[in-house]
């Protein structure tokens, strides 16, 4: 996997990055062993490990993971694009912003699970409803971030490009878009997690496969190990997504002055 090489330049680097995770796991196992945590509710790493093996060997792991992954990736894609586009539209029209900004903040606060009946009604029980749910959650995060970025732009630069005779569209593409990239990336970084949650919530609403399906199934059967296995997989997907995004970030923001000086702050 090429990007992994790019992201984690070497094993040591990877070691540092995962150390927090490893400590967490060790602590968890330890806490269970000495009786601080009751494995009946929290399970324990070794238990999860065996369950993961079983999950994998039954061929079900990849099946459920791939379903959720597909939903989340499409959701991330559509949600990010929609978030950027809407932020740009509202960012350039005071009046539209006045109408829609409160609407969007208001809508964001609605618990999506409460919309399950309507969602199922409109989008059915297929993959579409999960992608839409995932995209919806991503949309909000990317929107808020991008919209903030548009307000924060350096006006002198915009002026200079306008003076060169750039059309409003060119100004957006040549100035606003690159200038808001750091903001968009911050939004997408939040969106990574949101895309997974959206897929999971969509699966809670109604699904025949996926990690969300597995979690809600396993929960009702008190299969804590399996719930934890799924959470572990989601966690790893999040970490990997983050690694990929970091690579993107490095490429897209290579123009930025390095953040670290010779001396510590």
């Amino acid at each position: 996997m090429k990007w992994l090489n790019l992201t984690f330049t070497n094993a040591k680097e990877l070691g540092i990055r995962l150390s927090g995770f490893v400590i967490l796991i060790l602590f968890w196992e330890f806490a269970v062993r000495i009786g601080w945590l009751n494995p009946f509710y929290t399970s324990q790493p070794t238990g999860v490990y065996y369950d993961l093996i079983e999950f994998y060997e039954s061929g079900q792991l990849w099946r459920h993971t791939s379903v959720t992954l597909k939903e989340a990736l499409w959701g991330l894609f559509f949600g990010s694009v929609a978030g950027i586009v809407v932020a740009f539209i509202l960012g350039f029209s005071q009046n539209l912003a006045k109408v829609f900004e409160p609407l969007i903040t208001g809508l964001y606060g609605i618990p999506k699970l409460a919309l399950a009946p309507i969602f199922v009604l409109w989008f059915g029980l297929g993959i579409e409803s999960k992608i839409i749910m995932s995209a919806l959650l991503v949309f909000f995060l990317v929107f808020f971030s991008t919209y903030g970025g548009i307000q924060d732009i350096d006006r002198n630069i915009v002026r200079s490009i306008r003076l060169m005779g750039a059309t409003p569209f060119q100004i957006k593409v040549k100035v606003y878009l690159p200038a808001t990239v750091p903001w968009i990336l911050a939004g997408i970084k939040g969106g990574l997690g949101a895309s997974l949650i959206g897929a999971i919530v969509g699966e809670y609403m109604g699904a025949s496969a996926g990690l969300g399906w597995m979690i809600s199934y396993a929960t009702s059967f008190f299969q804590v190990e399996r719930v934890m296995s799924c959470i572990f997989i989601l966690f790893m997907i999040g970490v990997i997504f983050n690694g990929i995004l970091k690579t993107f970030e490095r490429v897209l923001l290579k123009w930025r002055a390095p953040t670290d000086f010779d001396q510590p702050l």
Partner: protein
Amino acid sequence: MKNTLQNKMVFQVEGLHHSFFTKKKEETKVLEGIDFKVFENEFVAIVGPSGCGKSTILNLMSGLLRPTEGSVRLRDKEMDTVHSSIGYIAQSDTLLPWRTVRKNVEVGLEIRGIDKTTRKQKSIELIKKAELEGFEDAYPHELSGGMRKRVDIIKVLAVEPEIIFMDEPFASLDVFTREILQKYVLKVWSEDRRTIVFITHDLTEAITLADRIFILSQRPAKLKSTHCIDLERPRDPEELKFNPRFIELYEGIWKDLKSEVEMQVKEA
């Protein structure tokens, strides 16, 4: 002023007033009744105390700001928006930080839809002129202050605008680099009949380059006086310094400026 009368008028500035308002609605009067004309193929310099309103005049003339009162007319049409026939080298740094030097120089050409090879050719040529070879692929944050300013200048010159506004373009350059660019600007101006409005704090520079010099008073600025520079063209910056007419002009303008300052001091 030799050519001004037979030449066509490019800008007509009439009764220009401008005020800025803070968010608390406090007024800062900046311009108080400015009138002047700029003719085709003229090189005009604007000189005045720091903070008097020079940049504001250029912003009004370029259509970036709308005057509180009075009017700016470009070739007999009221300025109501920016015009791409004007190239404006602003006082502040306006490089796009995410573009390399070459890409920054090309941005105006891109906007005009010039094709890639022409763009590249043009930008490489200008980068050479500005003595920036070797930094084509550097990002703005990797340049020195003077280098950044040079990129800013050639970025605007790249699109070959008919009218060029320059706001203290050479202030941060050493004498030699400055001379090279002054010469280049003069060449561009004389060969292609451009019209140039130029802000500077350097009287020598103003006299060397301009046809006319407008002296502004302290804020709120009025047009204090206009000096016509009747030195022969082409002018060589280096020789000019020893030209008696130059020295005469210099002293005249100097006194003019000084009296303004002294008046100010007296008032206070």
